[in-house]
């Protein structure tokens, strides 16, 4: 997991497009060839479209799509605070400051087989580049999506074509499950004896805990992508720690992707 990544760069990027997807969700496409070239699924950028005297810190965003050849990447984000409010007003040709690419991304399994992607809400943003890379490698992808409301379910359009199977539940429509999208994963593991080379989860610690329970019983490799408030994004400030079986680890440096069994989730 801890492959040697390239050192992050501090560069200016250009906004190519920023559009509202639905509700408070936006997708922004940014041109920054030096970052896009080395970006890996699961990694992130620190971004500001504001002056330090306006908002003091940059904000971390994971890569939603990476186009190394065209030198651009996309971010899927939810307008939730001051930073994303300013970001949501971005227009074509605006400049953004970037530090990236940061952190340790996902690793795909050595063997060709099945992988499961489990996301809640905006968590799907982090898993899409992994699905794209997995598909290229010939892996069979099972996607499990969950959201608060049906119209907020992100990703079926993008993940659907990449997945051999896609499952989803929303809090307002359970479809006969117990409300957890991991119900489908459990069915596959238990009744169909489906083997997964790896399971990846992002967007909900509750979902991650369910997967941890399943992992204990069915012994698959599992990885979680985490988020935390960050100061620097490059490991210097030690501000974004989470608790693991090895003690505090920095989400920006040792993470944001961690082996699921190493993370202490019940906090």
């Amino acid at each position, binding site marked *: 997991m801890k492959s040697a990544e390239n*050192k*992050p*760069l*501090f560069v200016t990027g250009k906004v190519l497009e920023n559009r509202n997807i639905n509700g408070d969700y936006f997708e922004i496409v940014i041109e920054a060839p030096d970052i896009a070239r080395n970006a890996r699924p699961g990694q992130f950028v620190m971004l*500001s479209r504001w002056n*330090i*005297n306006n*908002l*003091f*810190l*940059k904000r971390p965003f994971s890569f939603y799509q990476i186009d190394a050849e065209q030198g651009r990447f996309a971010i899927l984000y939810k307008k939730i605070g001051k930073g994303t409010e300013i970001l949501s007003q971005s227009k074509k040709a605006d400049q953004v*400051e970037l*530090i990236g690419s940061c952190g340790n991304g996902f690793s795909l399994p050595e063997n060709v087989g099945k992988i499961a992607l489990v996301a809640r809400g905006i968590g799907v943003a982090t898993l899409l580049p992994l699905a794209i890379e997995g598909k290229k490698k010939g892996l069979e992808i099972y996607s499990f999506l969950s959201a608060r409301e049906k119209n907020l379910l992100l990703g079926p359009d993008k993940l659907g074509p990449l997945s051999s199977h896609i499952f989803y539940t929303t809090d307002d429509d359970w479809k006969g499950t117990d409300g957890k999208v991991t119900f489908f994963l459990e069915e596959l593991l238990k009744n169909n004896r489906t083997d997964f080379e790896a399971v990846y989860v992002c967007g909900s610690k509750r979902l991650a805990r369910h997967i941890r329970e399943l992992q204990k019983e069915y012994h698959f490799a599992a990885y979680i992508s985490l988020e*935390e*408030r*960050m*100061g*620097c*994004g*490059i*490991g*210097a*400030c*030690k*501000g*974004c*720690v*989470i*608790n693991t079986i090895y*003690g*505090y680890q920095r989400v920006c*440096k040792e993470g944001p992707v961690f082996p699921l069994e190493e993370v202490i989730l019940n906090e």
Partner: protein
Amino acid sequence: MNNKVDLSINLGNLQLKNPVMPASGTFDIRDTILNKEQLNSLGAIITKSIASHKRLGNPGPRIWETEAGMMNAVGIPAEGFEYFKENILPLLEDFCVPIIVSMVGDSITDFCQLAKKLDNFEKISALEINLSCPNLNDGLYFGTNKDVLGDLIYQLKKNTGKVVMAKLSPNVTDITEMALTAEEAGADIIIIANTFLGMAIDSEKLIPRLGNKVGGISGPGIRPIIVRMIWEASQRVKIPIVGVGGITSTRDALEMFLAGASAVQVGSANFSNPYVMLNIIEGIAGYLNKKI
């Protein structure tokens, strides 16, 4: 860089090629975007705090942005001496600028023993004493109690031949009194100051924003208070003052020099702009060129 202006200074017994250096805690030579050449263009390099034994720091969340800066409750996680010797000290060999080692301790004895060990390494030019930690013997913070502060600096000086830089806490009624105490106890340089204690509470979740409940405020919001403190202390103390707190630009650094600082440290502004120290060095040269 403008070559016409010589920015070098003598900071006590330290010779710096310019008066700009990072503030400990916001900078780590293991985790920086700056390359070796850029790092060697700084006035000095400061390590993350080290302690006699590994310190874990506080539970998260450790960061909260404020209206004009940020709060942190990182809690001074620190590598122990052995780790420092094996893993960090060798990295410092790459640098040709003065190396300042930031130290944190639980007691005067703890500080002194660590200082004694560090005294053996020629590569280290100075020890920066982080006084914003409690003395476990009596629970008093070194930086906010005049007697403990004086005693610590006095004892430290007996255990080290290195330049001692006392990083004062701003959470006191009278910074001049603390600065004079450090000077009388034998400090070679004082640093004004550190973060201001603060607190933020989440009115939705009904809990503090920081895992440690309270944290240290840094950033532009504190700068005018720091400038005032530097000005006050500089009227009385004779040893050099290093200013730190909320510098984000050349203009901010100049303000501290004009208040009485001989050098400055740049802290949390490094997070948003990793080139900020380089920009400030160039900016000071440009300013002096215009003024001379």
